[in-house]
């Protein structure tokens, strides 16, 4: 039992680190597109890692299934919304950041 707990803790903390990375990206990156990139990818990976950790502690397969469903939905919605926002931003002429 202890090994499962340790593994779960590692996964959860890794997920939290990715969330932090996503927020840092949101705050520090120079334009909308890079921020979108940081947010969508880092947050979804962070959520996935946290789900994996929670799935290890789940009581039944039904719970694991529900967690998986939620993660897949967040992925789908996040990716689609990121695409919509980015293409909308391009259409409205928000310029890409060039160094």
């Amino acid at each position: 039992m202890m090994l499962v707990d340790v593994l779960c803790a590692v996964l959860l903390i890794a997920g939290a680190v990715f969330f932090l990375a996503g927020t840092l990206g949101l705050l520090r990156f120079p334009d909308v597109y890079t921020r979108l990139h940081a947010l969508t990818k880092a947050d979804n990976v962070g959520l996935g890692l946290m789900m994996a950790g929670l799935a290890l502690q789940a009581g039944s397969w039904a719970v694991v299934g529900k967690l998986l469903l939620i993660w897949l939905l967040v992925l789908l919605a996040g990716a689609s919304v990121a695409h919509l926002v980015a293409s909308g931003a391009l259409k409205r002429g928000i310029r890409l950041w060039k160094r």
Partner: protein
Amino acid sequence: MQTLYLALAVFLLLNLGAGMWRVLRGPSAADRMLAAQLFGTTAVAILLLLAQAHGNAALRDVALLFALLAAVTAVAFVRRAWEQGASDDAG
């Protein structure tokens, strides 16, 4: 384990607070909407952590709802506030 769940929940809430800065700063409307997406995903994570910490399975349903409805709000932004706003100005 309980302590870890709650500690991470507090951490995520602080994360959310940090993201608030982008809502206030973000030069364009898209930036503000991005921050709203952050809130949605973070809230899903917090709810799942709380569901495990308190053993309350209903909170997973709330997380499912969050995930679905954050998408609807973002699509409403892109299709209404953005596109129609622009066409109204042009037309």
